[in-house]
């Protein structure tokens, strides 16, 4: 059984490095599926974009190496991303600037 390798942040905090999936034009297209659920169909997956800090990466599949499985933990919400390189990109800064000016009241609070 191969070891699953989870990457930590370099600041010594013990927190997990979570990359940001920047939706939009990009080399990555995740597999999608539609599942009938509740009041309407749920569209799972099927997103297009790129890993913010690895713009040329063409797949989100884990990489199997001799050391183990390099697991890429990723989110499409910039507010949940922790990877320092992803957070340094212009796309990330623009996305966070948008949320910074968003009214946070009631259900919109986040």
């Amino acid at each position: 059984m191969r070891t699953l390798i989870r990457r930590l942040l370099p600041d010594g905090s013990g927190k997990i490095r979570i990359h940001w999936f920047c939706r939009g034009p990009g080399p990555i297209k995740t597999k999608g599926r539609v599942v009938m659920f509740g009041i309407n169909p749920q569209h799972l997956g099927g997103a297009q974009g790129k890993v913010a800090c690895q713009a040329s990466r063409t797949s989100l599949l884990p990489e199997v190496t001799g050391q183990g499985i390099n697991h890429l933990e990723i989110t499409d919400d910039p507010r949940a991303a922790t990877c320092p390189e992803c957070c340094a990109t212009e796309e990330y800064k623009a996305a966070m600037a948008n949320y910074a000016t968003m009214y946070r009241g009631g259900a919109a609070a986040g």
Partner: protein
Amino acid sequence: MSGPYTGTWDSSAIGTLSDDGYEIRCTIQGQEVNETDAYGQTLVEAIYRGQNWRALMRGLEWEVGLVDALQMFGQSVVSPGDLLPALQNIGDRWSRYCKPLVLTRILGDPPSVPLSLTATNAGLAPQMQAAFNMTSKVRELPLEMVFLPYAVTVGSSTKNVPFTTI
């Protein structure tokens, strides 16, 4: 449509869970119109009253993400991963202490769907009861989290969502 997921809460690892993994539940809220003169107690219509999503998990590792979630309202001494609950912040907004829950699939071939689930406003469920045994057995820590809605911008539109997926 199967495969395990890794999880983080507030970017701290949640660790290994029981065989059920992350159980995602949805309750569709509705007001039933089922008491009419013409149709008696037949359900003839309903009014949509929202939906509630939550996640249940049973941790088998005493990991930081799990222990910190249990103490999301504060510790007596800020020490991630240590059990030091404090009675404070009573009366404060629940969402203020919610943090992102990020689940990422492990399997690549065949790939699990969705690849990732992010609930940016996730926290303990109100009235949640957690119990763990301090004995010579695997210590299991069950948690129930709610996904409070939040605003997300995709392209040019903004919507309120309980979570998003890739």
